[in-house]
């Protein structure tokens, strides 16, 4: 098993507009990226449990070959900057991803 920090140089989160959150993982090596992509090693179920998504909250996983990157898109529960929001820029929502491990 490899920890995500051994194979990814960037793990980050950010708003994609005020109503969505996007999580990016950028892998260091093409072989790791290909394995993760082709073997579907990041699953919607995994993300759903990690981010406590309810069944009606959609999650989307998109691969971007030129950057050896995978992008995960989640809805925000509170729009950016509304009363009660906790992270206006959405830049600190990536923490749970750092516990990911891959069978590589």
């Amino acid at each position, binding site marked *: 098993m490899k920890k995500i920090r051994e194979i990814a140089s960037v793990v980050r989160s*950010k708003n994609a507009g005020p*109503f969505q959150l996007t999580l990016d993982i950028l892998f260091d090596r093409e072989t790791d990226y290909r394995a993760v992509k082709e073997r579907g090693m990041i699953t919607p179920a995994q993300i759903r449990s990690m981010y406590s998504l309810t069944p009606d909250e959609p999650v989307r996983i998109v691969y971007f070959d*030129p*950057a050896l*990157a995978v992008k995960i898109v989640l809805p925000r*529960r509170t*729009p950016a*900057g509304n009363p009660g929001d906790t992270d206006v820029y959405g830049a600190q*929502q990536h923490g749970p991803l750092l516990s990911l491990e891959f069978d590589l």
Partner: protein
Amino acid sequence: MKQFRILAPTAILGYGFPVGSFQRGLELEPHLIAVDGGSTDPGPYYLGSGKPFTDRAAVKRDLRYMLVEGVRRGIPVIIGTAGGSGAAPHLAWCRDIVTELAHEEGLTFRLGIIPADVATETVVEAFRQNRLTPLEGVPGIDETAIRACTHIVAQMGTEPFAAALDLGCQVILAGRAYDPAVFAAMPIMQGYPAGLAIHMGKILECAAIAAEPGSGADAAVGILREDRFELVPLNPERRFTRRSTAAHSLYEKSDPLRLPGPGGLLNLTACRFEASGDGRITVQGSVYEPAAKKVKLEGAQPLGFRTVCIAGVRDPIMIDGIQSILSELRQRVDGMLAEAGIAGKVWFHLYGANGVMGSREPARSQPAHELGIVIEAVADTQAQADTICSMTRSTLLHYGYPGRIATAGNLAFPFSPSDLSTGACYGFVLCHLMDYREDMFPVETVEIGGSR
């Protein structure tokens, strides 16, 4: 082969740039100096209140270099999304700075002003006729919410900038604009492929953020050719790399392969990034797919007034019971507010537990040795928000929770006064597409004279 060079001094007007980088950019003889000043990232407050999120002195400093060198050398200077959100008060704020600088520096030029405001009635009419399309994830709206928006802006594409350039404007100051538009308008007018021009604009709008190490406060140059574009770092500390440039295409986007904009889609499926030496990157294969012309609307409505209180807890007994203490406290405060006839809402931001991720926090059972509590109270008036915050704070301070042995007070306040009235707060309402109309972004030209 002909080429079109663009100097992007900084990621957001007011974020700054080293003078050396700017000078090296000028040495490459740019055909255009452009910057986008805006973002919705800082939240709805700035669009809603009409206030800029950048500092006036910092914006003036950046603009001084851009205007003095641009006007002296006859290089067009284009500024998009003035004042951060690009509504009428933001545009007026930035226009005032431009005029002030022109007088101070004795500059003479034709200024093009392009507002991006959309009349409330226009949006209401479009809503009634089902002509507003929400972007992905945007919740439903109603007419009341649209009418409550203090400023409604539309993101302009390249057309209004082209119109202003046709009118001979040396400097163009625009309201809310699609970020790449300030960069792409002029080369598209000259016949360069829109896909490459817009993709280059997408990267240059963040200036050196796409370099390694990235910086929002440094300059970069883009060189556009008919079949490719090249990114040039201007600081010996930075390089564009395949990774950094490709990674940037992902940034803040929900789909990295298809990037929608006004009037079309930027398709990066066939895009290639190649190193071309000296820290430069060459990009090919970006394709523009024209579509029905739409503009993206943005609008924020007032959601009341906010008062906050920051406090800390170091008592292990209280930390152990914090969730039940706060829910009991909430019930008690709700009762007191009902009795006093005050409507409002309280949030507890619990740092050390789930202050950052809220209900999405997966780590539920790792108590910290100290907790930060931010009490957030929101109500229809500032006075009511103050009352709610004060009542919540004083009740929590002396709350006799089960097992308490520290009977002198439950909270450590870093400040006196403990409560901060932060004014109006807002929420985004409009994040919708509407049909583009040619008269949406009228260009006003002003002759700026140069009396010192």
